Structures are given as C-alpha cells and as structure tokens.
C-alpha cells in the first residue's frame, strides 16, 4: 500500500487547489516576525527515491526546513514521484517495460525489503519510538507550505498525467526550473 493510501485510510485528504502555494506565501509574509525568508533561504530536496527509508529523510528535512521559515521545494523525480501518485493510479506507460513499473510500489522497491518484512519492521520500530510515519510528515509538509513539485519528464516516462497525482501540489517542473530554484537555495540535497 502506498503512503497516500494509508493516509486516506485514516481519513486524511490532501488539501485541494493551490493550498501549498498559498501557505508558502504566508510563510514568506511571516518575515516581519523575525523569521528570515530571503530568496537565498531556500531549500531544494531532489527526491529521487521512493523507498521508505529515503522518503523518511526527505519528509523530515523538508518539514524541518519549513519550520525554519525556508522556502522548501521537494522536486519529485524518478522513483520519488511515486510519493505524489494517487494510490489508485497504476503506471500505464507505452510499452511492457513502463507497464512493469506499475508492478512496484515505493515500499516494495526498498533495498531493505526482504519480501516486505523490511518496511514493515521499520514502521513498527519507528512507531515504538514515536517517529511520525512518512504519510503524516507529508501531510505536515503540505500544511507548512512545502512545495511538492513533480518532474514532468518522469511523468512522461511513467505515463502519468497531472490528474493521476494528488491534489495540493505544484505544476510539473523540468530540470531547468528545478535548477533555477537550486541556484537560489542555500541547501540542496539529493535523496
């Protein structure tokens, strides 16, 4: 099950429309309250992996950057795009190889898989240590105005359309738009 499916099971719905952007703007407006929001106070995380043990740090660092008042972008590319996919949407693609991608979901891709035991074990250990699950962190990221930007090229590769992705995210970006943001960011990470 994808993180979003789990989240929905618990009754959480992603905010609709342009919520992320509005919240990001609000964060910027808070600059009078002493929180630094200069353009160079940006953070870009290139979210390349969809494995649970990578999605966790993507979400932890993204929400923490937002807590610092930074303008945070999570550029979701390759396997990282799975985090933004609606759970009910399969990967269609245009040939058998891209169709095969649909047989995977982010947790099953993990290096720590062991037939599904790995992610389950991590979740159970995390739960015992009261670490918030990735889906809760994703919801918090959206509340804090973190910009979730899907990679257009990956969408094309996987045969995903804008409506196959969850609500409350930005319009798809290309590498150049991502690099522009990285140029203005003080912190750039590839996870």
């Amino acid at each position, binding site marked *: 099950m994808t993180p979003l499916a789990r989240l929905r099971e618990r009754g959480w719905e992603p905010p609709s429309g342009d919520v992320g952007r509005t919240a990001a703007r609000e964060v910027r407006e*808070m600059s009078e*309250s*002493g*929180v*630094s929001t200069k353009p160079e106070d940006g953070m870009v995380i290139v979210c390349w992996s969809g494995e649970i043990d990578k999605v966790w740090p993507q979400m*932890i*660092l993204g*929400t*923490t950057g*937002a*807590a*610092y*008042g930074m303008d945070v972008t999570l550029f979701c590319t390759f396997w990282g795009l799975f985090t933004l996919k609606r759970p009910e949407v399969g990967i269609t693609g245009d040939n058998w190889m891209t169709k095969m991608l649909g047989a995977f979901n982010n947790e099953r891709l993990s290096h720590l898989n062991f037939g599904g035991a790995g992610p389950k074990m991590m979740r159970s250990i995390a739960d015992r*240590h*009261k*670490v*918030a699950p990735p889906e809760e*962190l994703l919801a*918090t990221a959206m*509340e*804090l105005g973190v910009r979730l930007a899907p990679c257009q090229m990956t969408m094309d590769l996987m045969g995903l359309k804008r409506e196959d992705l969850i609500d409350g995210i930005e319009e798809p970006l290309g590498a150049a738009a991502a690099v522009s943001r990285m140029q203005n960011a003080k912190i750039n990470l590839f996870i």
Partner: protein
Amino acid sequence: MSDVAKTLDASGLACPMPVVRTRQAIDQIESGQILEVISTDRGSLQDIPAWAESTGNELVEKEDAGDRFTFRIRKA
C-alpha cells in the same frame, strides 16, 4: 518566571515534530511573547536551541529534568 503566552506539549513526539510544532505554535503568538515547549525527545535539547538561534527567536530558558525538557522562547 515571566508570563508564558502559550504552552506547547510536544511530549511523546520524535524528531522532527517538536521543532515543527514549535514553529506552528510560535506563529500563533505575538512578538515579544513567550512560548513554552515541553518535550520528551532528547534530540530537542540540541534542536530547539539551534532552531531558535537560526530563526532569530530568543531561547530564554532551558530545563533538563532528565526525561522531560522545558524550553521558553521569546518570539522575535
């Protein structure tokens, strides 16, 4: 101790939630007012002071009761 405008009980939350909730709570008070944060996450001992310094808010008090940590932060 000076008056606390708002208290955030972040007990039981792990990284990064104490800092994230602190940010959300401080947005609800006025400049100059004090936010009290209670946490049980040992990482908060480093995280909350680091966050306060980077965001320009003033950490006026830090109490370490072994398994429970209290911070008082004056909003910039």
